[in-house]
Structure formats: structure tokens, C-alpha cells
């Protein structure tokens, strides 16, 4: 079986399983899966930068957290905010932040880029952390989930955890398709070229800075989408959402699943969050186990689960021949 067909089948089976899950699963697991799918959107947005464009950002959580804060700041205490107003505002906020930060950080490359993205995310972290307006280190609440009512018609109700689940599932699938389309477009060809050899892309006539900046903004906006729904799900935001630990975990999801594939980050999000649950059940000092796990993955699984599956597939094919 060719790899691309195996992948299509796996994706389809996965999608059907996720679509049917709420019919059987209980509330706790439905909400856990919702959280995982939100993180999968976040991880895909980061993979667009890391895996496809070669931009190792350690500050991607800034856009995730910022969009959540936009919702928290716009949501009234005694009523639900409109999804159709707050979501565009949150995405716009994340995009604008990505544009400004991207304009500065993309002037650097390599190791500098890693350090500078981290530093700018930290700057936003402190901006929110130190300001009374945003609730400081205590964070802020979103008292009601945004309402999707439009001219009196309620398409879906985010207060209903089943509805919320399906909205997020649709968004995850939508983001997957959207990024897939973008990657096959002329724009996608350019960013992949930049990852491979930016210098040559310039000598072929591509103003690479512009393309990297647009890519950074797309990634930041999609991260904002994930951050918005994360805030909506938990009804609470705090500065930790922007912290570099959040960025680090997302990077780990990308690597664990298999970077440079869109399927990988989704897989990585599932694996990381389920492992987190597992380790938390084992010991109070689960971060110790997680740290060891991350080190082990870097040492022994550099191409992630996707790479492992591909390797096993090739092996089986070789045996069948």
C-alpha cells in the first residue's frame, strides 16, 4: 500500500472515530478530547513555522495566550459575548501581534531567532503579568461561553459540551485542510524552498522576508484560533498561557508526532496530553518523568511517531516483496 493512501485511510478512520466518540464517551473524555484537538490546532500552526518554513519559534504561545485574553477582556461578566465579534477580534489581535513581532524577529535567523522569539513572548508575558488591567498573575475569567446567535438564529450552543466538541473537531479538520491547500499553493512552494535554502530563494528572485512574515502571521493567527477556544473551554486565562513552557510543549508535540507533516502535530498533541495525564497519575513529580521522556524522544525518536510508522511501513513492504 502506498504511504499516501495509508495516510488517507488513517486520517479518515481517525476522523470518523472522533466524530462518533461523543455517542459513546462520557463528558470527561469528551472535554479531554476537545482540549487535545485545540492543542492539535495550536501544534499544526507551529509546525507551519518549524516544520515547513524552518523557523524554530520558542514564542508561539504568545499568540495563543493573547487571543484568549482578547476574549476574556471583551466578555461581559453577566452575559455571553458574541462569537461573531470576539472571534474576529481575537484572531485580529493575534495576527497584529504576529505582524509586529514577526517584523522584528525575522530580521534574525538561526539561534538568534530562537532566542529572540522567546524574549518577545516573555515581553508580552510580563506586559500582561505586570498590568492590573489584565488581572495580573491571577488571570481573568470568561464567565459565559461566547454565543453563536446571529440575527436570532442559534446555529450551535457552546455551553453544550457536545456542541463545543463538534465545533472544535470541525475547526481542526478545517485548519488541516486549509494548511494543506496553502502548502500546495505557490506560497507553500516558496516557504518550503526557504526552509531548504533561503539564500538560493533570494537569488531566484523571491523577497524571502515578506514570505516568512506572512507565514509567521498565518501561524500566529491559527494559534490565536486555538487560544480563543482554549479560553472559551476553560473560562479562564492566566499569563501562563503565553509562557515559554506552553511554547515548549507545543514544539514537543510537533517533534513527537513528526514535524513537516500536518498529521504529525495532531498525533503529537494526542500523545503528549495523554502522556501528561498518565504521568500525573503516577507521581506528584510527574514533570521529572516528562523531562526524561522529552530527552529520550530527542535521543531515540528524532523523526517522531510519524517517522516511526513510516519506517515500520517500509520494513513491512520490504518483507512482503
Amino acid at each position, binding site marked *: 500500500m502506498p504511504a499516501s493512501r495509508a495516510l488517507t485511510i488513517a486520517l479518515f478512520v481517525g476522523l470518523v472515530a472522533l466524530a462518533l466518540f461523543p455517542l459513546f464517551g462520557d463528558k470527561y473524555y469528551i472535554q479531554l478530547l476537545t482540549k487535545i484537538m485545540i492543542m492539535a490546532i495550536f501544534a499544526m500552526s507551529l509546525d507551519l513555522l518549524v516544520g515547513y518554513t524552518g523557523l524554530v519559534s520558542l514564542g508561539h504561545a504568545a499568540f495563543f495566550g493573547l487571543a484568549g485574553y482578547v476574549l476574556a477582556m471583551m466578555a461581559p461578566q453577566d452575559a455571553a459575548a458574541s462569537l461573531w465579534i470576539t472571534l474576529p477580534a481575537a484572531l485580529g489581535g493575534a495576527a497584529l501581534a504576529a505582524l509586529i513581532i514577526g517584523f522584528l524577529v525575522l530580521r534574525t535567523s538561526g539561534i538568534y531567532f530562537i532566542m529572540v522569539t522567546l524574549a518577545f513572548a516573555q515581553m508580552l508575558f510580563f506586559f500582561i503579568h505586570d498590568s492590573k488591567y489584565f488581572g495580573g498573575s491571577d488571570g481573568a475569567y470568561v464567565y459565559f461561553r461566547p454565543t453563536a446567535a446571529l440575527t436570532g438564529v442559534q446555529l450551535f450552543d457552546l455551553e453544550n459540551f457536545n456542541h463545543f466538541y463538534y465545533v472544535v473537531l470541525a475547526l481542526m479538520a478545517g485548519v488541516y485542510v486549509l494548511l494543506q491547500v496553502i502548502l*500546495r*499553493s505557490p*506560497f507553500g*512552494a*516558496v516557504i518550503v524552498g526557504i526552509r*531548504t535554502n533561503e539564500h538560493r*530563494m533570494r*537569488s531566484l528572485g*523571491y*523577497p524571502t522576508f515578506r514570505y516568512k512574515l506572512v507565514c509567521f502571521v498565518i501561524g500566529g493567527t491559527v494559534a490565536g484560533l486555538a487560544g480563543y477556544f482554549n479560553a472559551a473551554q476553560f473560562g479562564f486565562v492566566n499569563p501562563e498561557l503565553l509562557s515559554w513552557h506552553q511554547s515548549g510543549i507545543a514544539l514537543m508535540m510537533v517533534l513527537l508526532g513528526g514535524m513537516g507533516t500536518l498529521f504529525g502535530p495532531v498525533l503529537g498533541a494526542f500523545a503528549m496530553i495523554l502522556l501528561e495525564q498518565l504521568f500525573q497519575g503516577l507521581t506528584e513529580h510527574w514533570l521529572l518523568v516528562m523531562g526524561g521522556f522529552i530527552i529520550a524522544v530527542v535521543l531515540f525518536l528524532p523523526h517522531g511517531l510519524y517517522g516511526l510508522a513510516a519506517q515500520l511501513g517500509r520494513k513491512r513492504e520490504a518483507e512482503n516483496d
Partner: protein
Amino acid sequence: MTDTVLQTHELSKRFGGLAAVSNVSLELNVGRIHAVIGPNGAGKSTLINMLSGDLSPTSGRIVYRGGEITGFSADRISRLGIGRSYQKTNIFLGFTAYENCRLAAQSRLPSSMRFFRRATTYHRVRDAAEKALAQAGLENRAGTLASALSHGEQRQLEIAMCLATSPKLLLLDEPLAGMGAEESARMVELLKSLAAGHAMLLVEHDMDAVFTLAEVLTVMVNGCVLESGTPEQIRASPAVREAYLGTEDLAHG
């Protein structure tokens, strides 16, 4: 001359205290191959890098088709119609030969900020890529990964990518480097066929090829122009004989 494409005026590049290129003035014309020769470290690559925008000159001017382009960025210079190849093969090894050329040809779209249509469905880009592959003699290798091509084919692909950007001026940095005799002969034929429609600056160590191809030669030593002229003039120049070319080399040419 009416069809002058590019002129440099007193072009210089210094790295700290070291003058890599000093006061080089030359003129490139359509239909004429202009070769720059000289020993290693003479400043030939630095010269090409300034013309292609990879380096910005310390002083001097570059005029391209009547407009000054001194210090322009590499991508801007490429979009103006100046294509270059690299001495060290500089292709996308993970892509097929065709994809390499497609990516090069796509750079001639007014913009690649197109997000929703498949990159492979742009006919103008496809045609330009296929034409460039054919011109470079690689049409049979279109679907082969660049990393699987032989060294000579990779050099051909390097030229094909350059051609796919439909340049008016070609800057070729040692296109024959590391090639066998047969591959060299093919490349010489290719360059000859390109001469008619393009202006060309050729940096090359292979003297046989240089004297076969070039109508004008510039000899550089230590960053300075030692002599400039037709192949006959260069052969006859005592300064060149003394400084660079062994008499035996000239006898062969």
C-alpha cells in the same frame, strides 16, 4: 555599443583591510560571452557576487539597462532579469529536477502570495520550467530527485534553474567545475547556444572552454583588471603571459 546590458564603473569591494576587488570597469553585451579569468583569489567570485546582489560593493557603480542597481538586494536584481549560477552546486536536493525549475520559474509570477490554487496548475510556470529543462538537456531527467543526478547533471540543473527565471543576463560562476570531458563538451555546447539570446559573464578555470566560448576576456589578478580584450589580444599580452598564463596554456588555446 547599442545593446549594452550592464556596465560597472570602478567597482570595488574591501573586506576589512583586504581589497578583494579594486576599480573594475567592464561592459556586458547581448550576444557576447564575456569571460573573467584569473588565479584563485583574484576576486572573480566577489565580482559576480556584487553583480548578483549577494554582496554590496564598497564603492563604484553598477548600471543595468540604463538604471543604477548598485547595492540592490539579490532578489530585486534577479527580478530585473539577472540570473546567476553558483560555483558550488546550489540546488534543492530534495526536489525533482522539474520541481527545482518550477520553483525557479514561479519566481516570475508577479507575486507568489497566492494561497489557494495548486502551484502545479500554473501553465505559464510549467511551460517555462519545461523549456528550461529541455534547453539544458535534462528533459529526460525531469522526475528524478536532484540528489540522484550525477554531478554533471546537477551542474546542468543549476543552469536550467537560472534559465527558468528568463534572465536577460547570465552570471555563471565556474559552470564546468568538476566535470568530466564529455560533460564539459555538452556544457560548452549549451553555453554556446545560449550566447545568442543573452548577455553572459562567465567565470571559468577551464582555458580551453574559455577560449572556445568567449568573445571578450578580462584577466584579473589580486582584485585588479590586468588586461581586457579579445582572446587574441589576451594571448598576445606580455603582462598576462608573465603574470598568469603559462606559455604552454596559450599554445593549447
